[in-house]
Every structure is written in C-alpha cells, then in structure tokens.
C-alpha cells in the first residue's frame, strides 16, 4: 500500500463516525492538522499539489532559454590528454566563468562526458554509490587538432569524437554519420555557484542576466525594468510553493545540456511515468519530470513525476540502439522534440516522394537542479549491447530467490494472525498456489516498524512457523519514516547516534507520515546504513524468522506535510542538501534493507526487498512496483509500458498491483489482471484498506477457476522465469521486453506496448479491454513461426493476427526455434515443486531447429555465486536430435528433478525415438498428434543435470 495522506488522513479524522474503528483505530492518532488541510482531494490526483515546470524556478529559467548560438567556447589551448582522459576548459563568453570538461572513452563502447565548474566556490555534488565501480577506460587518441577543434578516435569502427571550439559542441560520428551531438542546439547552461549579493541595496540586472549563464542578453533593458517581478519569479535564492518555502543558501545551481540524435524517431526509458512506452515530444507541454514523489491516485498518460526516477534514455532506429545516462540525483526535467513529430503519415510519405532532404531527428534536453553534468553515452549498437553497457556501469538485476517469482498475496491489511491463517488456508482449500503473504503498516505496533501489534500479531513466530510448515513466506513492511517516540528503540538509537536527516537549521528534520510525527534516517550515511542493516538481525528484529522478508514503501521519501508530499530540499544529509540527493534516497533505503537481509543469514541467503522509490542502480537490490494504481482497465493497460520502460533501463523485477490498489475491480477486470500479472515479472495482488476483500475465491467458483488457472500458468513457467532472471543477472538483458529489443529492424514493433516478450521466446498479448471478444496481436519475425501455448496452433511471423478470446485465458505464443522448460506439476508453493520433473516444450522453427536453456540451483542461497552450485544447460534441437549439454562444466549441483516429458511442436512423426545417455541407447515411447503436429515423448526419465540426446528416427 501506501501513498499519501489524503487516502488516510480523511479516515483518520472520521474515525468516530465512518472509519471502521475495528482495524484502524490508530489512524485516529494522526493529526487533524493535515487531515483538514487536504480534505478536498477525492479521487484522482490533485495536480495542484505538484509542480509544473513553470512552478519549478530552475526549470522555468532553463526552459525560457531557447536554442541558439551557445555562449560556450572550448579553450583548446587548455587541452590535456592522459591515456584515457581528456580535459579541456570551456568559457562562457557572457560571464567569463570557466568550466572543466572531462571526456573518457570507456570500455564497451561508451563515452563519458563530465562538465563541472573549473573552480566552484565549494564542491558540487557528484552522485556516489550508483556506479558499481569506477568505469574502466580505454585509451583516447587525438587524430587531428586545429583552431576549430579536436578530433579524437574512439577506437574501433571508425568512431570519432569531435570537439568543436566555437561554439563548443561535441559530435560522435561513425564513418560519415553523426550518431549523436551535444550542445548542438546551444542549450548547455551551467549556473555557477556565486555569493549572494545584497538584493535590497543593489539593483542587479547582472544577476538576473546570469541566472542562466548562457542567456543571450538581447532583453537586457526590458529585464531591468521588470527586475522586481523577475526577481520574485526567478526564485534564485528562495522559492515558495504552496506555503512551503525553499531557502536556497547556495542560490541557483541548475545545469542543462542538449543532445541531438540524427536519424532517430524513437526514444524510450526515463521512468517512472504513467505513459506510453515510446516517449512523446514535450513541445507545448511539460517536460518529463524525474523527481521521486508519492503521488496520490496518479493520472495516466502524462509526464508527471512518480515514485521513482531512472535518468536513462534509449534511442533506437533500425540501424542502431544507443543510450544516454544522465547521472544526476537532483530534480530533473527532460524535454523531447522531434522534427517529424508533427508530421502525418501522409506528410512523411510526401517527404519521401519529393525526396525531402530532412532527416528525422530527435532532440533531447536534460535539466537538473544541482550537481554536475555527468553523462554516459552508450553507443550500442545492438539493444543487447546497450543493456550490457548500462549493466557494466550500474550493475544488473539482483538474482532473486526463486520463491519471489511466484505469486504474492497482499492487502492493506491482513487484520491479524487469524486472518493470515485463514487466507493461507483459503489458498489450500481452493488449490491455488502462492508463495508470499504480505503485511502492510497495520501489523506494526502503532506504525513503529520492526515491531508487531501486541493484540493482532502477538505471536509472529508462531505465524511465520505456520507458513514455513507449508513452505511459504511472508513480507512485512518497513518504511523509512520513524515515529518520534522516546519509548521506541529504533527512534532512540537513531537519535543517540545522530543518524537523522537535519533540517536547514541543524535540528532533526521532522515530518508527518503514517505514525504521526516522524524522523527520517539519513540513508546516505554509510554508517547509518550499516546500523539499519544490523536491525534485521534475528536477535534485533523481534519476531522475525528466515521466511520473513521486507517491503520498503514511502521511501521517496513521503512527507505528508512537506512540499509536494516530500522532504524539504534545504534539509541536510551531512554536508549535502536534500536537493542534491533526493532521487537516490529510496535507492539507499532498499540498499540498506537488502544488506540487512543478507547479513542476518551471515551472507548465505539472497534477500528479497520490494521498493516503491528507485533510482539508477536500484535493480541491484530487489523488486519495484508501480505504486498506488487503481482498479481500472486503463491502469491494467498502463502496467505494460510502465514495466517495459523499467526493464529497458535495468529494472527487470517489476510489477503492478494486481487488481488495482484503489477502488474495487469488476470480476472481469480482476480475472484479466491475474492473467496479465501472471506474465509480468513481479506478480502481487494488493488492495487498499477501503476496498472489499478480493482473495481469489470470493467471486464464485467459475472465477476462482479462472484465477487458479492463471496462477498455475505462472508456476508451470517458473523454470523459464528463473532462467531469464539468471540471464538478466548475468548480462543485464531485460526479462520483460518490448518487441523491438528482439526485432530491432522491424519498425512495426517500435511503438508496440500492448504486448510484450518474456525473454525472447514468449510473446504475451494481455486482454485489457472490458468485454473483449478478441485481440489483434502482432507476431514479429519474417520467416518465423509462433505457437499458441494453449492450442499449439502454429502461426506465421510478421503478421497482425486476430485471436478470438474468451475469459479463460489471454493469448500467449512460444517462438518457433525455442525450448522452454516447464514444471507442469503445480503445487501449493514454489518450494514444494523443487524436486519435481520438467517437461520440455520444444517449438521448432521452420528449419526444424530450436534451442533453449535450463538453469537449476537451490533457489535461495548465494551458493550459485560463491560455490558455483548450479546447473546450467543448453538444450538444442537440430538434425532431429534434442541434446542437453553442459554450459558450466566446473559447476556442481545435484538435482533430483528429471525430464518427465518432451513436447515437440511442429514435428513430424518419427518411426522411433531413442535416448542416448552414458553410451547406452534406450527406446522412448511417444505419441504423435497429427492435427497439430505435436510429438510427445513419454517419460524419457533422465536427470535434469545429465548429458543426453534424444534421437528422432
């Protein structure tokens, strides 16, 4: 759950006459103050609570600055080149401030561009802890140099980096093609640190002029006249939004830079936004905003900021995929424009017919409130290259415990231990598998995290043991706001260790959240994080056991009475302002929590931590979900592009609340959501406190059966999901992907976000329309085939296919040429399936070929990493032989799982099937269904870890 005060403040106030006191009497403790303040918002976001670019002083200042001749000039005589680093000074001819440009050629076809003040008044913030290491460099060499600029070699593939001096710009070229240009539109703007002038005594047009350092001064006279009003608007040294004043002791510090992408019409990424996969142009509207916020009942299809931020954008065309990683944790806005955006298809055709010389181009501009410019240009060229390039910088998706890929049952709130028990039994009674049951904020004693309500959850270990007996697990919420209460151990320790974030005056920063008045631990402090991690030790976190995991909510951080429901920007984290680190607070919370879970097992067990706020690098610490959505069809639909966008920028473990958090879903919507969620990486049903109960069996036997079937499909495919997560962990490849990732040259795939791929081999088209009788799915791949997983019907690729649907399932296809291992014996939890046999689904390509992988380990420990205790096998079908070969000969892991069945789709009937193993040949029974061309091999029986070959003769 979570979200903002409105949803809860109101009930809190009305406890006496409307809020059901039985399970929520504590809400009454919340202050009437903010309750009344926000009474008015009902359903749907209150946009007035959140800033537009116009209301964000630096964004307004920067955006007022239009493309043109850049005032920046490169001082070529200052060029210094070491082996892998080039430095050069830039000067702004308007104010004579010097900047320092640093260029690095990084291993793996990346370029890093850093721009900082040459001599800032004090250091500017540079984001730590996001990069997994200082990125390894490769030598740079100067190809040529003259008064106009420098040409550097980027190594292979005739790639060059051209530094132009007057005005300053950077171009990355490959052969004669410009891949990407920086400052080509002259929007580099770096507000240098300055001393505050006496604004009372001195009319200083100068300061207004300098407000954006690159500002051309054509309007100088006018500005002097308007100075009084401008000064107010500019908000250089102070800014007020909705009664919250941001004191800005450092004055204006914002930065901006533009990027031009010739030949690019499609850009993706920069989550989190509730918007389409393909980013839209922002001309005439607000830029996409990146500022982690607790947005109450967010709206769809707009660029407003949400709970998390990953400042990474991918650019794609049929020739190349590239990425821009803007490493900055301050409030950031991204403008996108395109020279083809306004054109209709007809207009584009006309251009083509008339031979218009205009090449499509996308221009992007990044604006951040503070810090430095630190950009990583990932040059691809393939999508998988960009993924591994980004992974080499910020790490890959953490490899989750197998059980966390199962189904999660959550609700705000399961009332008490009895309730937990009866829901657990409900799953058994209705024969629906699940792995995790979740407890929201009501489980704790007065929202004091790490504690249990003494009445409702008086025997947590008993409860956890009950779940463990069924091989199931639990997640309890631990939010980062800490109740200010001298009777609360956690608060007292944080206070005594002086670990709280400070307000601008140096006292502990306090704000309102669920428990009432709360402090916010300074998670940017490594000592604080180490202490926090230690709180998860079994002897510290009373009532915890090894099957208890954690959920970090409200870590934007959410501050009910703060500006935009978050922390004041002038709050202090050590010497840095909250302004500098805001977007990475949530990352640190999850980092410290995951570390705690690792430590409690002495480093043996994998953690599982869900977070709502995130930043670049958050993928290393667990799962994310898309926050407080609603039980509406459009919210089901938007879950696809939201998770796809996250997958593109490293976060594979993504999901949306199944059923929708706010409001009550219709039965049809709930069923469709289960069917969709079963094919998304993080599969959790969740519901708001005010909604009616919606455990899967509460909608009549028919719907229970539909939901059971959807969840079972998920469990049967767990071996495939697990293998994909292993791959994501190793390579950075997203688990849930847009089609274009696997079909980069097929332009028809570039905007598709109503269907998606799981790995390369499953294509899923959810049904997201009420009363739908059919969907049109695009099957990519000319010359390829796809098999309907429900009927085994074969379809050709590169076509739009209309598929009639009933309520029973959503269209899912397996790619011809793939092998997917499944465990078709679905049990009540994933752990119960550990030793079960596999069925291999071999879907043949038109050339009668298929390949796949099988990954097996213990499902929960780090032994796969530390001791190489896993099985990784390649499965190949070629020349009428299916072979399992070892991809990791020096690995060791024993499984009792075996191969019980092999289905070969698109096969012809053999006369004989033989299993070759250990030099012996044994015949294998088989059946052939000629109507669907499905060959079933009966019980070949080999151990899943063995080498073997099945020969069709």
């Amino acid at each position, binding site marked *: 759950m979570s979200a903002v005060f409105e949803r809860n403040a109101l009930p809190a106030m009305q406890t006496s006459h*409307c809020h059901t006191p039985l399970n929520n009497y504590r809400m009454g403790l919340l202050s009437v103050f903010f309750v009344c303040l926000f009474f008015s918002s009902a359903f749907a976001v209150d946009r007035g609570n959140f800033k537009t670019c116009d209301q964000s002083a630096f964004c307004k200042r920067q955006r007022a600055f239009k493309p043109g001749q850049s005032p920046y000039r490169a001082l070529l005589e200052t060029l210094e080149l070491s082996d892998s680093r080039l430095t050069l000074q830039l000067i702004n001819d308007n104010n004579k401030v010097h900047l320092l440009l640093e260029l690095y050629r990084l291993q793996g076809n990346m370029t890093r561009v850093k721009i900082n003040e040459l001599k800032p008044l004090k250091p500017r913030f540079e984001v730590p802890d996001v990069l997994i290491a200082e990125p390894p460099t490769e030598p740079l060499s100067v190809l040529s140099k003259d008064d106009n600029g420098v040409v550097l070699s980027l190594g292979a593939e005739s790639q060059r980096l051209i530094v132009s001096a007057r005005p300053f710009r950077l171009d990355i070229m490959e052969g004669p093609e410009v891949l990407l240009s920086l400052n080509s539109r002259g929007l580099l703007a770096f507000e240098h640190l300055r001393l505050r002038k006496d604004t009372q005594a001195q009319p200083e047009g100068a300061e207004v002029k300098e407000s954006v350092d690159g500002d051309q001064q054509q309007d100088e006279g006018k500005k002097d006249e308007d100075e009084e009003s401008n000064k107010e608007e500019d908000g250089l040294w102070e800014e007020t939004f909705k009664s919250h004043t941001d004191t800005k002791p450092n004055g204006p510090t914002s930065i901006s830079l533009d990027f031009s992408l010739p030949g690019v019409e499609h850009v993706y990424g920069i989550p989190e936004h509730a918007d389409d996969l393909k980013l839209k142009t922002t001309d005439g509207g607000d830029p996409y905003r990146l500022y982690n916020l607790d947005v109450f009942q967010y709206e769809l299809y707009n660029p407003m900021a949400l709970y998390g931020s990953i400042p990474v954008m991918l650019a794609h065309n049929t020739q190349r995929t590239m990425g821009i990683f803007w490493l900055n944790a301050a409030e950031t806005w991204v403008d996108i424009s395109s020279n083809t955006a306004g054109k209709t298809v007809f207009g584009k055709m006309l251009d083509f017919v008339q031979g218009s010389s205009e090449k499509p181009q996308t221009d992007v501009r990044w604006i951040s409130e503070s810090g430095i410019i630190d950009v990583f240009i990932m040059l691809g060229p393939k999508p998988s290259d960009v993924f591994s390039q980004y992974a080499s910088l910020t790490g890959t998706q953490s490899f989750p415990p197998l059980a966390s890929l199962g189904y999660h049952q959550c609700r705000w709130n399961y009332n008490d231990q009895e309730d937990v028990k009866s829901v657990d039994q409900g799953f058994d009674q209705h024969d629906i598998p699940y792995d995790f049951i979740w407890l929201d904020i009501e489980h704790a004693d007065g929202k004091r995290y790490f504690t249990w309500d003494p009445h409702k959850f008086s025997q947590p270990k008993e409860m956890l043991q009950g779940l463990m007996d069924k091989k199931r697990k639990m997640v309890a919420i631990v939010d980062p706001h800490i109740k200010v209460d001298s009777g609360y151990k956690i608060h007292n320790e944080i206070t005594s260790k002086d670990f709280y974030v400070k307000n601008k005056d140096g006292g502990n920063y306090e704000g309102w959240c669920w428990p009432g008045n709360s402090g916010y631990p300074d998670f940017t402090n490594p000592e604080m994080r180490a202490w926090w991690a230690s709180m998860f030790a079994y002897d510290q976190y009373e009532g915890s056991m090894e099957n208890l995991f954690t959920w970090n909510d409200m870590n934007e951080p959410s501050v009910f009475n703060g500006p935009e429901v978050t922390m004041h920007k002038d709050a202090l984290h050590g010497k840095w302002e909250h302004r500098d680190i805001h977007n990475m607070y949530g990352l640190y919370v999850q980092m410290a929590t995951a570390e705690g879970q690792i430590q409690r097992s002495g480093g043996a067990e994998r953690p599982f931590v869900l977070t709502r706020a995130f930043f670049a690098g958050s993928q290393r610490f667990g799962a994310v979900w898309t926050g407080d959505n609603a039980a509406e069809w459009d919210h089901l639909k938007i879950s696809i592009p939201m998770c796809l966008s996250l997958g593109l920028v490293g976060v594979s473990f993504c999901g949306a609340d199944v059923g929708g958090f706010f409001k009550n879903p219709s039965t049809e919507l709930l069923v469709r959501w289960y069917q969709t969620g079963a094919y998304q990486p993080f599969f959790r049903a969740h519901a708001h406190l005010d909604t009616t109960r919606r455990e899967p069996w509460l909608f009549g036997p028919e719907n229970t059966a539909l939901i059971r079937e959807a969840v079972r499909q998920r469990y049967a495919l767990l071996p495939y999901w697990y293998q994909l997560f292993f791959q994501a962990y190793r390579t950075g490849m997203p688990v849930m992907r847009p089609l274009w990732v696997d079909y980069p040259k097929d332009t028809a795939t570039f905007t598709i976000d109503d269907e998606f791929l799981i790995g390369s081999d499953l294509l899923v088209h959810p049904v997201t329309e009420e009363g739908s009788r059919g969907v049109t799915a695009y099957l990519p791949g000319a010359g390829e085939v796809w098999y309907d997983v429900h009927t085994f019907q074969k379809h050709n690729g590169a076509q739009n296919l209309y598929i009639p649907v009933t309520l029973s399932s959503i269209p899912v296809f397996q790619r011809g040429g793939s092998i997917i291992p499944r465990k078709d014996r*679905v049990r009540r939890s994933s752990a*119960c399936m550990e030793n079960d046999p596999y069925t291999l689904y071999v879907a043949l390509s038109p050339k009668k070929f298929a390949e796949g992988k099988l990954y097996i380990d213990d499902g929960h420990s780090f032994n796969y990493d530390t001791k190489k205790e896993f099985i990784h096998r390649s499965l190949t079908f070629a020349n009428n032989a299916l072979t399992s070969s070892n991809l990791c000969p020096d690995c060791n892991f024993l499984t009792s799982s075996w191969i019980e069945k092999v289905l070969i789709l698109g096969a012809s009937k053999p006369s004989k099937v033989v299993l070759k193993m250990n030099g012996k040949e044994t015949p294998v029974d088989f059946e052939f269904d000629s109507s669907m061309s499905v060959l079933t091999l009966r019980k070949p029986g080999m151990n899943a870890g063995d080498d073997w070959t099945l020969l069709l003769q």
Partner: protein
Amino acid sequence: MTCLHLLLTLVFAVSLGTPVEIQRPRGVPLTKKQFYEESKPFTCLDGSRTIPFDRVNDDYCDCKDGSDEPGTAACPNGSFHCTNAGYRPMFIPSSRINDGICDCCDTTDEYNSGAKCENTCKELGRKEREVLQKMAEITKEGFLLKQQLIEEAKKGQQEKQSKVTDMQENKKQLDEKVEALRTVKETAEQPEKEAKERHLKAWEEQKAAIRLEKDKAKMAETFLELDDNEDGFVSVSELQSHAELDPDADGTLTEIEAQGLMGGAEQVDTSTFESVWPKIKDKYHSEVSREEADISLCLCVVQAQPTIKTPEKTHEDEEAMPPYDADTQALIDAAQKARDDFEEAEKALREMDDQIRNIEKELSFDFGPDAEFTYLYSQCYELTTSEYIYRLCPFNRVSQKPKYGGSETNLGTWGSWSGPENNKYLLMKYEQGTGCWQGPNRSTTVKLTCGKETVVTSTSEPSRCEYLMEFTTPAVCQEPANIDPSPHDHVEL
C-alpha cells in the same frame, strides 16, 4: 526418473475391531478398487483410453482425468485418497503427494519426500470424538432448550394473538366509546360556545364605553391644561404653545395653523373644543407626566367601573375579561368535562392501536420455522473486546461503542435472514449502518451456531466496513441423530 513407486500398498482398515488387509493401488479409495485390477489393462475412469496396468502409478500422467496416477503427483487434476485409519478418510489433490508437507494423518501422502510425518490419526480421532461428543451434548441440550423456546414462543405467540384479538375487541368498544364521547362533547360545546360569545360581546361593548369615557376625560383634562389663563376658553395663542401639534411638521405652530385647528375660531370653549379634540388628540403631549395622567385616568376608570373587584391592579389588567357569570361557567365546565372524557378515551384508543401494531409487528417477524427465535426479540447481547463494546439487538440493530468513551457506531439495522438456501436461519444480515468514508454503509453478518447459551462469541471485520459476528443460540440446534457419533461410522469397510 524411476524412483520407488510402490504400486500396491497394504491398507489396514478397522472394521468392527477386526483388522482386514485389502490390496489396492496407492491412493485408490475402496469404492474404486474394482477399477484397478492388476491382471487387466487399465481404462481411464473417464473411458478416454486404455493403458497397460504397469502404467498405473508409474509417475507419468496418461489419463486426462488423472485416474491412472492416484498415488503420484503426476496428474494435475488427480486426487489421492488417505485412509486415515482411526480418523476420517479424505481425498487430497495429488499435487500434495510428496511435497514435503504432511497432509494425511496416516502419513501416506509423504512416502518419498523425506518429510518426517507422524501418524496422528488416533490422536485426531480421539480429539474429534471428544469434540463430536461435546458437540453432541451441546446439541442435545441445546435442542431441548430449543423445544422449550419453541413451546414458549408458541405459547407467547398464542397469547399475543389472543391478546391482539382481545385488544381488537376492546378497541371496537373503545371506538364506540370515543364516538359516543365525541357526540357528548360536541353537544356540550354548542351552548358553551354561545354563552361564551355572549359574554365576549358584552365585554366588547363595555370596553368601547370605557374607551369613550377615557377620551372624554382626557379631552377635559387637555382643555384645562391648554386653558392657561383659566378663562374657560382655549385661545389660539394657548394652543400655539404646543408646537407638536404643527400640521406641516415645520417645527412651529403658526397662528394660522392654530386657527385652522380651531376651525377658524379665535378661541373655543369646552363644548366647541369637542370638535378640535379629534384633530389634536393623536399628537398632543400632556403637560403633566404620563404617570400622573395614567393614575388619574385609572381613578376615573375606577370610578366609572365600580364592578371591577380589584382596583389596586395596574392598568395592564384593566382590560382582562371579567369572569364568566355562573351560568356560562357551568356550561364551560360541562363542556370541558366532555372534552376531557373524550380525549382520555381517544388517548386510550391510540395506545391500544400502538399496542396492537407492536404486537402485530412482532408477530410479522420471521422468527424461524417454529418461532424458535422469538425469544431474541427486544433483547440485546453484548461482547466486550479490548477496544469496543459490541451490541447485538436481534431483529433490530448491531452497534459498536468504544470502551473508553466515544459515540456509538451503527453497524447495521435488521435486514433479513440470509443463510444458504437449505437453511436461511443460519445467518442474519444487518444493513445500512453508518456510512464509511469512500466506502459502503456498514453492515454486519451474524453467524448463528448451536449453543446452550445465547451469547455473542466473537466479532471481526473481515472486509472493510463488513462485520462478522458469531452468535450461539439453542434456537439453531438440530435434532441430534439417534446414533452415537463414532469414527467407526466413517471408516470405510
């Protein structure tokens, strides 16, 4: 994998204390044993195909209906039968075979998983017998109580029915009485009305005479006041001293104006003043204080009205109607008595109506097939939890009140019986309670179970604003079966 799969298992069943060995494939109930004959090929129970018998329980699913794998987890839709000797036999989904979790108390579901299961059937059987026995006792006693309740309810119902009949009879009489008294009342009120009107008219005339007297006295007094030189005439100049009489309200009373008031005369005597007086009396300010004037007036009145018995009374009482004369008073008293009698009778009738309506309402409730729930009517039952006092008033409402102060919340008013079709009297539904924020109105379902005592045993809020209350009452106790409940009855033979 071809791990150990025991095709057959020995099953011990207890039948009349004699152990009997019966061979059949693992997981097959006795009732289906005949379909699994080792010597013959096996036909799936849905008839879909026939397979060699060695494929039964070979850990591979051949039959779509799962019937070839009753003892393994191979079929997704299979079911496994545990005999559970000493307890109740049961079917579990075959996905629970060898999943490491003990499901069957006889441990037969975990034969190859390494799970350490203990046979708990005897213990469970014993406990169940105890529970059943206890339940049986409760049911027995409860059922007896229920009979009493039914009897009482029937008696009560009959009583109420006859009471209603009696009351309706009484009501008829009352109706007649009311009508009779209405006539009496109306008859008595007519002369009363006439006498009162006469009295009122006389009083009005008397009041008019008094007013005239007063006016004359004031005129005379005014004349004396105005006649400053006491020459028996009021002259223009004497009148002019009273500026308030100025007809055009310009602040001065001119000679011409004064003369105009005096009808053109230079002076007037007491008799001609009578024609001037009406023109000035409304504006004229007396030269003596008002009190004095009033007192003098009062005295005049006293003199003029010697019949007034209380001359000391202030002038406010002066206009009080004189009491009715004895004849009128007698008529009034008679009419009042008739009215009182009538109203009393009417009130009695209304009360009777209310009583009849209440009893009829009570009789109209569905108190169960044998009226066994009648006794709950107009009763309330409370349960105190750590935070709240819950109150169930059957057929009326459910409420919740904070234990330590605070107002009561209505959790629903009586709606209907809402149990399953075969026995709707197992659940009560109370609806339309206090509304919830962004949610429905509160409602409560009361689940009734057999018990000797009538008591609320628990409350919960399984879903937002939807409460569940558990309530025991003898009224739902079913007639106990004649035979003693015993596990032997359940053990298959």
